[in-house]
């Protein structure tokens, strides 16, 4: 067994390598693919954070795009207003980005806490309706707020970030989720998913657990929103509509609810697929994407409710274990 210290160290090394590799890859990719690459990272961050609520805790949130919007607009407002001077040079813009990302996480997280507190006290389905309503209220509010651009959108956000930031934060989020799942809070969240009554009987403060998970998940969406805003340098309320929330939900369900690597995998698939299917839209003339999304939700639930990876992770799949074992055997044979 590895001790916690080495495990932490190796995780940090892994994180650094990962963001460095992403940065390198982004540097060599042509602009279109580079943008797609970053979008994959942002979507994966959204899916991983939503997985904490919809997958791990067994609740159902339908307003993730609303929290993303909060984060995006927070970052946009800060980087053009109070923190604008930080974004003048390349070096200080890194500091500025760190500030806006942090602020976005705080704002979205507190909003998540506020929304979650009343709706998570109750069992089950109320959260879905409340989050749906919350997402719509945010979108309509942004549409009507002229100080933030209203329906015209928010223009002139200083571009910052890039692959190292996106994938570094994604890796950080994954690591954090992984660590949480190994902690007592993670176990408590799983127990809430499996049987709330039993969890309560065992002394788990279910409401508190759920609200914590929900606030953390909202904060993750806020971070993704901030990165998105600095990436696109133009945001408008339509980018964060109900369809976006559904897209993230489909990612979590397709990946397997509760599976972190599944969420990442599904995010990659569902970001690349629509781009690959673009010619189909030009031929048929209708945007069949939403029809496909909704149909895949229903069919998944009917025929493969576990999604791609079920509740396990990529490395706990039987075929992955077998692969690992054969690799290990091959190594020992050689030596």
């Amino acid at each position: 067994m590895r001790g916690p210290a080495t495990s932490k160290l190796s995780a940090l090394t892994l994180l650094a390598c990962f963001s460095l590799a992403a940065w390198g890859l982004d540097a060599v990719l042509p602009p279109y693919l580079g943008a797609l690459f970053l979008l994959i990272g942002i979507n994966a961050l959204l899916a991983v954070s939503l997985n904490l609520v919809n997958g791990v805790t067994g609740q159902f949130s339908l307003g993730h795009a609303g929290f993303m919007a909060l984060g995006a607009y927070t970052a946009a407002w800060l980087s053009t207003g109070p923190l604008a001077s930080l974004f003048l040079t390349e070096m200080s813009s890194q500091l500025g980005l760190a500030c806006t990302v942090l602020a976005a996480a705080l704002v979205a997280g507190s909003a998540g806490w506020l929304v979650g507190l009343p709706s998570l006290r109750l069992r089950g389905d109320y959260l879905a309706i409340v989050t749906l309503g919350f997402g719509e209220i945010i979108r309509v509010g942004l549409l009507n707020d002229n100080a933030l651009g209203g329906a015209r959108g928010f223009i002139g956000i200083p571009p910052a970030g890039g692959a190292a930031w996106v994938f570094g934060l994604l890796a950080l989020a994954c690591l954090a989720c992984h660590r949480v799942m190994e902690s007592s809070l993670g176990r408590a969240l799983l127990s809430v998913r499996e049987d709330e009554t039993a969890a309560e009987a065992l002394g788990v403060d279910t409401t508190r657990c759920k609200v914590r998970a929900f606030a953390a998940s909202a904060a993750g969406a806020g971070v993704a929103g901030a990165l998105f805003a600095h990436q696109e340098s133009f945001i408008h309320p339509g980018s964060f509509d109900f369809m976006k929330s559904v897209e993230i939900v489909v990612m979590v369900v397709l990946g397997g609810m509760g599976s972190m690597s599944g969420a990442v995998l599904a995010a990659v698939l569902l970001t690349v697929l629509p781009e690959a299917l673009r010619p189909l839209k030009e031929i048929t003339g209708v945007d069949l994407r939403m029809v496909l999304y909704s149909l895949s939700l229903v069919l998944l639930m009917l025929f493969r409710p576990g999604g791609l990876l079920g509740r396990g992770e990529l490395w706990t799949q039987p075929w992955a274990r077998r692969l690992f074992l054969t690799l290990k055997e091959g190594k020992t044979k050689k030596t």
Partner: protein
Amino acid sequence: MATLIQHLINGISLGSIYALIALGYTLVYGILRLINFAHGDLFMLAAYAALGVCALLGLGDISLAGLAQSSWGAFALVMALSMAAAALAGWLVERLAYRPLRGQPRLNLLITAVGVSLLLENGAQALFGANPRRVPTLIVDAPAFSLAGAQVSTLDITVLGTTLTLLLALEFWVQRTRMGRAMRAVSHSHETAALLGIPVNRVIALTFAVGSALAAAAAVLYGAKYPKVEPLMGVMPGIKAFVAAVLGGIGNLRGAVAGAMILGLAETLVAAYGASSWRDALAFGLLILILLFKPAGLFGSYQREKV
């Protein structure tokens, strides 16, 4: 004073439409403990069915001069046929999407419901196009009589009359008939009901059909009030009717009607006296307030879940 009464009349008229939709939510929730997200979209499908029936019967706009018994007959016919179509659609949704999931975790059922809802919306968009279509006028909205200076129109009378008739019929069905009793038994406990020889699946399917038929009646009335049909028309009324059902205590039929009336009146009054742009946010604000202070709704009783 007259304007206040006018707003109250409009509010009751809007509330009756919400009530018909809310009953579908409450019926299904009572029996399956499921928020049927697709209910608002069944409402939308029913509106398209009504359009289809009108086209099939060759009903165009009926002119003022021709306003006689015939238009009432046509209205009743359109309503009956679209209720039948919606009942069929509701039955199909239950049969194809919800029944195979019986016994599985409720989260799966909820995700399926969201999926069905989106599928109906986007399917309708692909099939019928996103452009709104106009509903032919079957009832001319003429002032019928005045009440303390406020005008009560024929349309208001139709809406209220239809709603009352359907509510009484539903009340009779649930309380006095064999099938209604079976439904109440199933909503108590599926297992016990099955042991007593009640065909649980058939009762659930019938509940969906009845709820959808009520939504269809609401759709026809809504179409007479706001003559526009589009694929996303069911979303807002659906959500608001759900809020109404929660307000009255979800699972409680009379509560749903009361909640819908309260919501309809509150919305009309808010729109009339002040913030019309906040009209749609009111429902969500109310919902959050109820969840905070009285999660069981005004007339419901909160049952603690036991092992």
